[in-house]
């Protein structure tokens, strides 16, 4: 029998994953000004890389998580330095850049999905890792879920500290608020933007790895995660990184509750929240 605690833990687990991925998207849109609708495909790549490293080389998924993340960081960083920088230079207005970069991501979406299917086939994959039950507070949980939850929360915490305490983090926040002034004050704007895009991909990689530890994966899984990340960043407030964290957790809890009541309606519930949000307070929970 599913208890209240089960639902809460599932919700936090889901929320942790949502938060990690949403923070990545928030960095990419909020700072680098790229609405990366291929974000879910990066998540999918993170998941598949982890699966691949575990099933082929036996690398512990918790270690593979970092490897996947780094690889995806590299991919994201390079992509920005080549494709998006080129678009940024040639765009007539900032609005044109946002539109063009979004469309370029649309193209990337299909490219990445196709590449994944070519590499690993279109079937559902999965692996078993720490799949033994653990009990505390009178309830049973799968160990991998608890570890995933723990890692998700740690990643979010570390990232939050990075943004608020380190010099680079402050540079990023400055660039998010006002790129021009930040540039004038010595922030190497081009590098920071590429870095942010890369960090966003890094978070996607982490998110994908975490997902692969608890759920099955398949090459078309990305779309849904992109949708959810979009809803979360609007819910938290566009441009607010703490907002994405909170929004992710909220949505995860909602998802868990709805799935318990009526499985299959979680996405619909998220969209209802999205609609209400847009009607009542589009600036989100922590938005300006």
């Amino acid at each position, binding site marked *: 029998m599913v208890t209240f605690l089960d639902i809460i833990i599932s919700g936090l687990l889901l929320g942790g994953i949502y938060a990690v991925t949403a923070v990545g998207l928030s960095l990419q849109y909020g700072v680098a000004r790229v609405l990366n*609708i291929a974000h879910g495909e990066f998540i999918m790549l993170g998941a598949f890389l982890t699966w691949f490293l575990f099933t082929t080389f036996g690398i512990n998924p918790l270690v593979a998580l970092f490897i996947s993340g780094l690889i995806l960081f590299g991919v994201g960083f390079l992509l920005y330095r080549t494709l998006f920088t080129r*678009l940024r230079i040639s765009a007539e207005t900032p609005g044109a850049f946002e539109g063009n970069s979004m469309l370029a991501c649309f193209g990337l979406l299909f490219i990445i999905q196709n590449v994944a299917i070519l590499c690993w086939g279109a079937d559902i994959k999965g692996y078993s890792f720490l799949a033994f039950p653990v009990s505390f507070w009178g309830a049973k949980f799968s160990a991998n879920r608890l570890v995933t939850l723990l890692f998700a929360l740690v990643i979010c915490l570390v990232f939050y500290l990075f943004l608020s305490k380190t010099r680079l983090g402050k540079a990023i926040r400055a660039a998010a608020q006002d790129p021009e002034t930040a540039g004038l004050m010595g922030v190497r704007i081009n590098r920071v933007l590429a870095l942010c895009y890369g960090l966003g991909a890094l978070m996607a990689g982490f998110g994908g790895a975490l997902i692969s530890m608890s759920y099955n994966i398949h090459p078309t899984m990305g779309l849904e995660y*992109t*949708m959810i990340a979009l809803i979360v960043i609007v819910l938290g407030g566009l441009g607010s990184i703490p907002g994405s964290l909170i929004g992710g957790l909220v949505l995860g809890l909602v998802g868990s509750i709805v799935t318990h009541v009526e499985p*299959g309606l979680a*996405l*619909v519930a998220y969209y209802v929240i*999205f609609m209400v949000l847009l*009607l009542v307070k589009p600036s989100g929970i922590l938005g300006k």
Partner: protein
Amino acid sequence: MGIGNRTFGNTPAWIAALLLLALVAAAPLYAGVYTVILMISVLMYMVIAVSWAFFSGPTGYISLASAAFFGTGIYTSAIFGMVLPMPLVILLGALASSGLALLVGAITLRLKGIYFVMFTFGLVELMLNFILWWEVTISGTTGRVVPPMSNQTVFYSMLGILVVLVLVVFFVRRSTYGLALQSIGENEEAAAHSGVHVTAIKITTYAVSAFFMGAAGAVMATRWTYIDPKIAFNPLICFMPVLMAIFGGMRPLFGPIIGAAIFTYLEQYLITRFPYYYMLIFGAIMVVSILYMPEGLLGLVQKIRIRIREKQHANS
């Protein structure tokens, strides 16, 4: 641009267009079955691409929800195809899609364009999810059957929809309404301050574009005959019209038409020759188009024509 408003005031172009139309309309009489079927696909893609560009071109609000409207049309056929006459079903499909567009527009078009993009991006998956859940949980069916129509009927229905659409787009672009649409894309705030009811015009235009996509969907359902939510709501249909319009060029009327023609043939070719790579190729074309052909194929052709004219002037 001057192009949209002043082109085709010349008679030779009109005559050429009518001749082409007559040629196309007579196709089922002289062309083989396979060609007619291919042309149905071309016409369908043209309807979707032109409808998409009708709204997203001038206003600059990029809709990623085409498949949701097309799919609504398909599903309307699936639900009512057995019990109502086809012309009525097509109309219902068109109206249902318009209704969905009105809802989406009312929620998102009052806000900045980015919210519109984000909302429409997920709409297809949402519709898929919702209708799948409904069919499984409430109506208990897993697939529906649509009574088939002959290839000829489907062909002429689609052609008819395209012709009406082209006429609508043509006359709107030359009217003050079309000017208002363009002004919204140029500078929305200035348009509002010049007396244009910006939100109403955006929502109405979006609903009109969805109308034609829904009609096309309702017609196509009769070709596929077996419909389930996954077949009806296919994310690829979100991507293709955008690709066609970007590649062909968004502003002139015929940009999306040419883009659609090229792509349908390309798709047929690629699906048979490279079934595992074709999405990758299309994605790459999209990225390349955005990087190197900002005005689309038509824009590129124009640039070349201007260059040639410049050279001629320099030589004379």
